[in-house]
């Protein structure tokens, strides 16, 4: 029997596999028993009602996808009344993803979702900070630090900060998130991208641009997860293009303590179930007694420290 459990800032997960925010909901329970997951992570909500972006909201690019869902939200009230209770039937810890366009609104929501039944709060700081220039909080270390401090003051629950790949300062942003009070980092959200229908000469997404997710994102997210693990002392939860147990192992070796599976679930709704089973088989085959024996085992001593933080074209 191998031990798949991991610890994220005091929260024990029975295995390191959980869904990525926005790619999971109650409906997946109609496909398999979601009790098998390491955690349940809900779609990001905002305080008030929001419609989300114009359609089409999704398109295919090569073997990956773009989305511009936006954050349609029924508001915090509906969320606490309907969504949180649904997950009470499960023992799996519930992680609630939240977002806000200003730091204060964000913090207020953070305290509002600090309720019985919520095990951790994932703060989606990859969303636009409309008080500044509309760039995501997590693009710059300073805005990351500021928003994290306000969020930290708003809850006693573990705070997972979800970073964006749309930055040239991943290690600095990761450190700022930790200093601002993050208990863990989720690395990463989608990467800003675009596709054009050459026949109609229109953007393929109603919102013009969207976020790239799926296999194309994997090598970028893996690099970021590694940089974050190297530059902070809090757990990193890898996310981006993960669809197989091999992908999970790559992230764990790079230093991630757990991972989130997003787009892969759209292609194969039982992807997470398969990944958990295969991860277990891999550990048995490799005669490792715990999945924790994989974390951060990359053989990288030969590499110059500088390389990790440089962020230049190689």
């Amino acid at each position, binding site marked *: 029997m191998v031990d798949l459990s991991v610890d994220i800032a005091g929260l024990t997960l029975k295995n390191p596999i959980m869904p990525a925010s*926005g*790619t*999971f*909901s*109650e*409906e*997946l*329970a*109609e*496909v*398999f*028993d979601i*009790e098998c997951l390491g955690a349940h992570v809900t*779609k990001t909500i905002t305080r008030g009602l929001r*419609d*989300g972006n114009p*359609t*089409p*909201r*999704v*398109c*295919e690019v*090569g*073997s*990956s*996808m773009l*989305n511009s*869902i936006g954050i*349609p939200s029924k508001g915090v009230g509906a969320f606490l009344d309907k969504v949180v209770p649904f997950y*009470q*039937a*499960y023992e799996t810890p519930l992680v609630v993803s939240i977002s806000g366009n200003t730091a204060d609104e964000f913090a207020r929501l953070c305290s509002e979702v600090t309720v019985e039944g919520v095990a951790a709060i994932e703060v989606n700081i990859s969303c636009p900070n409309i008080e500044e220039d509309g760039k995501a909080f997590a693009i710059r270390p300073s805005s990351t630090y500021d928003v994290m401090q306000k969020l930290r003051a708003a809850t006693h629950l573990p705070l997972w900060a979800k970073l964006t790949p749309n930055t040239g300062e991943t290690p600095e942003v990761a450190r700022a998130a930790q200093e601002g009070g993050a208990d863990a980092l989720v690395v990463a959200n989608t990467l800003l991208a675009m596709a054009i229908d050459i026949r109609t000469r229109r953007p393929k997404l109603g919102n013009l641009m969207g976020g790239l997710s*799926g296999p194309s994102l994997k090598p970028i997210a893996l690099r970021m997860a590694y940089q974050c693990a190297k530059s902070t002392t809090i757990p990193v939860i890898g996310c981006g293009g993960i669809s197989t147990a091999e992908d999970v192992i790559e992230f764990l070796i790079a230093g991630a303590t757990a991972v989130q599976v997003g*787009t892969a*679930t*759209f*292609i*194969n*709704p*039982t992807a997470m179930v398969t990944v958990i089973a295969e991860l277990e088989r891999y550990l048995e085959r490799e005669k490792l007694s715990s999945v924790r024996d994989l974390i951060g085992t990359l053989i990288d001593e030969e590499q110059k420290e500088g390389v990790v933080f440089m962020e230049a074209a190689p």
Partner: protein
Amino acid sequence: MTSVLTRPASAADGRAQPVVFERDLDVLSNDPVNGEYMRLVLAAPREMLDLCRAGQFFNLLCPSLGGETPYLRRPMSIYGFYPERGELHFLYKVAGAGTRALAQLRAGDALNVMGPLGQGFRIDDDWQRLVLVARGVGLATLAPLALEANRLGRHLTAICSARHPDLLMSIDYFRELGAEIIPVTDAEGTSSLEHLEQVIEERIAGPGIDAFYTCGSNRLLTLLQRIGKRHGIPGEIALEQQMACGLGMCHCCVRPFRKGDKTVQLRVCREGPVFDIQEAMPW
């Protein structure tokens, strides 16, 4: 009685129960039905077919074949489901990468499907005289309604529209199931909105109509909304939208609907693909 799929109530422990299948099915055949369409017949297990309802769809994992590498699943209406024969049918038009790949499947190949998904057509107990109005591949979505009407002993009239008489599909199928057919075509100049309206009004004045069914087309939607309002006849429409998950998780497939004086965004994959015809909004 309605034939809407009522998803199993939560079990005793309060948890949702698995009711959606994700399975590799064997291809039994995959043949052109006329120049533009293909019919795909899969061998499906009884327990999957027993859950199927007219108007529901599956999300198909189109294979990487012949240089095509579709990534997302492709939604396809159930064209026919036969629990006794263990068959699940789809009727599709070859459009882009996904359907081009589908078209290359041969008997004996496997295809991964997920479903049945979404809400099927409603046939209320007192809806005796049903009329469906459809064009092109939309007939694929409405075809199983004929089967259902037949099973429930209702009278169905199918107004089938196409560019050309040659392209009229499913007519034989509808006829076998005892439906009455009114073919209209562009080539014969019988498919204009004016002519359609006239045909339907005559029918309302004559035997009467209890419910309309249609799908896809904006023109047909506004026509049937107008006639439906005028005569107080209910109806349903099956709609399409780009999808990713097909299950209700990603919120990419929304469309706007009128609910009283509000406009709400509903998920085509979950609250639909079949919607109340008066709530649907022209696009």
